[in-house]
């Protein structure tokens, strides 16, 4: 199988199922409707790509937590600042990149919410849930950009 560009076509790699990939960038203001529209579009793409309810639950939860972090802790609810959401939904994996216009944060300074003394503290569980429900979560310095990857259960890694 060749991956050379198809000279008859528009340069798309031969055999690459690009029509099966949902890829979209959303520039979100602090308006909750914006975020809700983006989430709906992503959820629709997940359904169309045959992701099971458990996978959709995991991705939706992680996306919600990451967006809340970006708006609230990153942009500090500043209406002049934006959050950029890039989604890529393929057959085997979902990649979500989120960046905010804040100063970032020190990941090591986030306390473990499951420690006995922290159980009654009402906040600080978002990152933990993102890590638990996604296959990979990587914060890029200074911490205002995160990449989350979800691999369909049973899909090959790498």
């Amino acid at each position, binding site marked *: 199988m060749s991956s050379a560009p198809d000279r008859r076509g528009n340069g798309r790699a031969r055999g690459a199922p690009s029509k099966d990939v949902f890829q979209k960038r959303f520039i979100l203001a602090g308006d*909750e409707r914006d975020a809700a529209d983006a989430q709906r579009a992503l959820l629709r793409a997940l359904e169309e790509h045959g992701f099971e309810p*458990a996978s959709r*639950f995991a991705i*939706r*939860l992680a996306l*919600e*937590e990451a967006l*809340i972090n970006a708006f609230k802790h990153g942009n500090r609810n500043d209406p002049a600042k934006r959050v950029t959401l890039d989604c890529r939904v393929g057959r085997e994996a979902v990649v979500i990149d989120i960046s905010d216009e804040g100063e970032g944060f020190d990941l090591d300074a986030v306390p473990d*919410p*499951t420690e006995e003394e922290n*159980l*009654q*503290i*009402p*906040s600080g*569980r*978002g990152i*933990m*849930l993102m890590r*638990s429900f996604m296959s990979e979560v990587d914060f890029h310095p200074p911490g205002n950009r995160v990449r989350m990857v979800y691999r369909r259960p049973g899909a090959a890694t790498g």
Partner: protein
Amino acid sequence: MTSAASRLRVAEEAGVTRIEFVDRNILDEANIQQIGEEINRIIDAEPQPRILISFDNVDHLSSAALGTLITINNKIRSKDGQLRLANIDKQIYEVFVITKLNKLFQIHETVDQALTSFT
């Protein structure tokens, strides 16, 4: 005063206030804040609140909703009251387990089991 419709269904049953959510998704921050305020008013009205929150129909919740539940639990405990959670969907229960909040809350499979657990 807010004129927003209630986000809760509330019923009294054998000395217990039973609360259900109107929403299937408890994600939206404004909704979560309203839910917290409504439950706080219920707690304020009882000298020793006995509250059962049933998660019928709830498909999703966020860490902000967990935070509100923790605040509610702390307030009920400060009044020597009791809080029980019941009917939690399997995936949402996993969220409680991951965060170890299943240790903090008394969670029952069914409303009937939760009702009989009040002392």
